[in-house]
C-alpha cells in the first residue's frame, strides 16, 4: 500500500513538473505543394508525347524524388531550418498525398525564400538503421516496387525517372525503356561522386506569411524536361540507363535547375 502511495505521488509530481507553456507556433503550418510538369503541362504518366532538346520523343512512367533539409528565409535575412528528423520527404508522382508536404510548427513570420536538398544528405546516408524511419526505411511499404535505396552500394536513390522512348534501342523483352536512378552521396570511406544538390527558390514579390490564422501553400514546380534540357543536352538514345556512374552528375546538374515557384497562396 505504501508502495502504491509513493508510486502515485511520483506520477503526480512527474505530471506536474512536465507542464510547460504551449509552443506558440504549434498550430502554424506551411504546405509545399509539388507539381510535376513537362514544360508547361502537368506530367501525364504513360503518355509518350514529350520531346527533348535533341528531338527525341519520350514518356514518363515513374517519377520519384527525395526532398530533405528544408529551410525558410525571412525577409529580415534570418533562417528557420525545419528540424532534421522531420525534414525528409519522398515525392512520388503516382501518390497524390506524397506531393503535399505540410510543415508544422513554423515560427510566425514572413518568408521570402525556400531552400531544400534534392536527395538524402550524406550524414543520414551513413546513419544507424534506427535513424532511418518513415520514407527512409528500406522496409517501409511505400518503398515497395520503387526501391529508392541501393542495398548493394548502401545509399539512397535521390531521383528516379523511368519511361519509354521510341529512340531507345529495344531491350531483350522488346521494351524501349530508359531508366535514370540518380544517387551518390560522396562515399562512406572512399571518395566517389556527390550528386546532392541544394535548391534555393526566392518566392518573388509575394512572401509566405505564416501565423496562427495564416497557413500558406507554396506551389513548387519541377519541370522534368529540364532533366534532359539543362546546361547539357541529354540524349536518351545515347544514355538509356544512368545509374551509379559518372554521367549521373550531368543529370544531377540538370535537375538542380528544374525547380521553380508556381505561386504562393495565403
Amino acid at each position, binding site marked *: 500500500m505504501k508502495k502504491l502511495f509513493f508510486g502515485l505521488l511520483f506520477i503526480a509530481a512527474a505530471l506536474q513538473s512536465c507542464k510547460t507553456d504551449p509552443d506558440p507556433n504549434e498550430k502554424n503550418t506551411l504546405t509545399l505543394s509539388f507539381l510535376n510538369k513537362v514544360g508547361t503541362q502537368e506530367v501525364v504518366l504513360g503518355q509518350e508525347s514529350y520531346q527533348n532538346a535533341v528531338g527525341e520523343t519520350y514518356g514518363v512512367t515513374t517519377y520519384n524524388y527525395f526532398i530533405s533539409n528544408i529551410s525558410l528565409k525571412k525577409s529580415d535575412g534570418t533562417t528557420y531550418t525545419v528540424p532534421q528528423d522531420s525534414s525528409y520527404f519522398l515525392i512520388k508522382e503516382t501518390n497524390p498525398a506524397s506531393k503535399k508536404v505540410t510543415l508544422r510548427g513554423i515560427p510566425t513570420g514572413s518568408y521570402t525564400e525556400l531552400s531544400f536538398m534534392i536527395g538524402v544528405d550524406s550524414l543520414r546516408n551513413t546513419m544507424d538503421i534506427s535513424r532511418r524511419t518513415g520514407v527512409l526505411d528500406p522496409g517501409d511499404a511505400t518503398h515497395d516496387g520503387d526501391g529508392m535505396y541501393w542495398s548493394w*552500394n548502401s545509399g539512397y536513390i535521390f531521383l528516379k525517372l523511368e519511361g519509354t522512348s521510341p529512340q531507345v534501342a529495344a531491350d531483350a523483352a522488346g521494351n524501349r525503356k530508359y531508366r535514370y536512378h540518380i544517387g551518390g552521396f560522396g562515399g562512406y570511406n*572512399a571518395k566517389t561522386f556527390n550528386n546532392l544538390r541544394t535548391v534555393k527558390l526566392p518566392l518573388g514579390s509575394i512572401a509566405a506569411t505564416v501565423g496562427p490564422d495564416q497557413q500558406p501553400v507554396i506551389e513548387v514546380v519541377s519541370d522534368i524536361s529540364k532533366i534532359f534540357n539543362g546546361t547539357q543536352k541529354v540524349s536518351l538514345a545515347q544514355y538509356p540507363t544512368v545509374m551509379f556512374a559518372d554521367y549521373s552528375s550531368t543529370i544531377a546538374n540538370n535537375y538542380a535547375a528544374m525547380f521553380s515557384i508556381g505561386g504562393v497562396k495565403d
Partner: protein
Amino acid sequence: MALFGWAACSKSTPPPDPTTPTTETLEMPQPSYFPSVVYDLKSNPLTYDGFQLGRSLFYDGLLSRNGTIACGTCHQQAVAFTHHGHDLSHGIDDKIGMRNAPPIQNMAWSKEFFWDGGVHQLDLFPIAPIENPVEMDEKLPNVLQKLRDSKNPNYPELFKKAFGTTDITTERFTKALSQFMVFLVSNNSRYDLYLRGTTNALTATEKEGLALFKQKCATCHAGELFTDQSFRNNGLDNSRSSDQGRFRITQNPDDLFKFKVPSLRNVGYTSPYMHDGRFSTLEQVLNHYATNVQKTATLDPALQTNGQLGISMTDDEKAKIIAFLKTLSDEQFVKDYRFADPGFGKAF
C-alpha cells in the same frame, strides 16, 4: 520531490519501460589478440533471445520470394558459412550469383562487407541478398509482412521475447540478424591455441610455414584476422570477367579489379577461393601468386617488387605455408550446435 519531477521529464533518463524484456545478455568472445571491435555493440546489445531470433531468421527461407532460399543456404556452417563446392552460388530458381559466397565469421571486426565493400554497416547488410534478383529476390517490406503473419515459428512472439513487443520493424529485423552473425566468432583453431600459449599446438613444419607466411603473405593478410581489410588487385587474369570489383562502388578507375583481402581464418574449409571461386585448392592459390600474377594497371605494388611479378616461393615453401594455413581451421566453430539450423525453415 522536485528532484523526482525533474528526473521524470528529463529525456536522458526515460522511465523504465515495463515491457523491457528480462532476457539474458550474451557476451561476445573478444580475443585479446584481435583488433578492436568495429560493430557498435552498445546500439544492439546481444541477448539470448535476440540471438535465437536472429538464428531462426538466418535459417528461414521465408526471407526469399518463394520460400526456398535462406541465408544459411549459401552460408553453411560445416564449411565456415560458405557455399561448399560452389564457385559462384546459385540462389533463387537456380540463378547464378555474381561472386563466391564469403564466410560469415568475426563480423564484428569487419569495416566493410562484400568483396567490393559496398555496405559499411552490418545492420544494413541483409537487405542486399534479400533484394538481389539472383539471391532471394524478395522485397524487404514483404519479408516484414510475412514475419508479422507467421504462426510457425510465431515470429511476433519471438520478437517480443527479444525486443519487448511484437512489433516487427526493419531495425529489429536486421539487428536480430546482426546479433546472430556477430556472435559467430571463430577463435578456437589450433593456431589460436598456439597464440594462447600452447606451444606444441603447431608442428615444427607448421611453425616453419607460419614464419614463411609472415615473410611472404602478411603484408595484406595482416594481423590475427589475417586481413588488413584493404581492397587490392591481386593479379588474377581479369580478361574473362566483366566484374570490375571495387570500381563498382567508387567509380574510381584506380579501384578497377580490386577486391577485399579476405580473412584466412578457416581457409581450409572455404574452398573454392577468390572472388569468383576460380581456384579449388590452396595449391592453386599459391601457384597463382608464385607464377601466374598478371600485370595490369591497378596491380598491387606488393606483387611487383624488384621488377618481379608475384611472390617467389619454392614448392617446399608453398607446402609449409599450406600446412600452416590449415591450422587456422576451427573445428569447434564449424560444429558449434549453437550456430546450427534450429530445425525449421528451409535452408537446403
